[in-house]
């Protein structure tokens, strides 16, 4: 099954599937992920990472960007980001951009 059951690595280009919407909730003043029968409240760092998940950008690019922004060791950021994205992928809230057929 293309696009699902992904193993997140630095070369992954993850994005949110149609059924998971990242949105700022004006009424409650929080970021939420809307999913079937669920409303999740990701924290600020998760929101920042998820906003980078557009299906184009690779995890490596995201890590570079975050490491530069926070002047933090790249390796630590990479480990944390991959663990977080894998957790979301296992729960079905992240998919990989389908391979373009040549």
């Amino acid at each position: 099954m293309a696009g699902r059951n992904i193993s997140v690595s630095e070369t992954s280009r993850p994005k949110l599937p149609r059924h998971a919407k990242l949105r700022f909730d004006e009424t409650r003043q929080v970021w939420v992920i809307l999913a079937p029968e669920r409303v999740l409240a990701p924290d600020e760092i998760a929101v920042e990472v998820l906003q980078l998940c557009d299906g184009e950008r690779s995890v490596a690019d995201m890590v570079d960007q975050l490491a530069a922004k926070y002047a933090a060791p790249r390796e630590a950021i990479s480990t944390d980001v991959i663990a977080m994205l894998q957790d979301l992928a296992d729960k079905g809230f992240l998919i990989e951009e389908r391979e373009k057929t040549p």
Partner: protein
Amino acid sequence: MSDILTEGKTAAAPNDGLTVLEQRRSTATSYGIPLAVLAELTHRCPLQCPYCSNPVELDRAGNELTTEEWKKVMTELVELGVLQIHFSGGEPTARKDLVELVRHASDVGLYTNLITSAVLLTKEKLAALADAGLCHVQISFQGNEPVVAERVAGLKNSHEKKIQAARWTRELELPLTVNAVMHRQNLHQLSDIIQMAVDLEADRLEVANVQYYGWALKNRAALMPTIEQIEETSRIVEEAQARLKGVLAIDYVVPDYYALRPKKCMGGWGRQFFNISPAGKVLPCHAAESITGLQFESVRSNHSIAWIWQNSEAFNRYRGTEWMPEPCKSCEFREIDFGGCRCQAFALTGDASNTDPACTLSPLHEKIFKLAETEAAGGNNRFLYRNFAGGTLETDGDHGA
């Protein structure tokens, strides 16, 4: 960094988004801003499932809210802070204006979910719904093959249509949940139903044991599983959840009568969710009208939906914990489960403020457990099919289909 997402805390109670939002200092106290609304667009349905969650007194087509009324409702819901709308029924695709309603919901910013039997869908209709912004499709199945499935649904050729509609859903890259309603007469198919969901490339499977309200309460003797079946079900579900991690998410709804603790029904009365009936009544849950003596306001009244949510007598009657008698009043779990389900307490004890007998602390718990065992062993397999005429009893040669 597993704690980077507070989402981790919701894993144990996936429906309790409010708890997460409360932790984030929303204004919620005894009640907050509702998260989701179940919009029952119609009670019309080509299926006749004996466990239907609709009330026994169904709303007639002539009383249904109009397209413009539903659009106004959705605009109000967004102003109130509602995030998600579930289009349900009856069969929501029986409404000719469904695409228009989904488009309006998308336009005003609601997350849209279609809860459907799928037998009226065509690929063109599904494509139009996808174009209108539909976020998610949930298709009910009555079994994994036509013999059992179509006897339960009371409709010939329904199973194949559902399979076809599920395939179209995936072809259109719409997310799919398979909703399997389980009871004594189809629990033996559970393993095959799980495999069916995998084969259909569903994202999610709901294994939902029948909840005994409305039509299901009338059919309880024909539906109640045995305790052995429930033990086997839990084993199968746990095994499949581990095996299918990352492939198929499985949510499991346990049956009340064999539970030890009651469910946190609707996340607490008037706390996170509400329901709008086909004729526009605003209800704390879809079964609330079964509680006699409560008056429910309509979206056709002079009140706004926000006013009804905040101020109406029906919503405030069982909110929070102030209304509770013993043993709930002094119970350490009173804010965990809010005493269980008001409709079930009313149906089984005659008083909606009593502890839900699903709880071991209810004086009636032992009695309903015995009742379940007796009915499960009774061998009465005949269904009363759901329809506008008050139900039709299954006959030997005719399975309603």
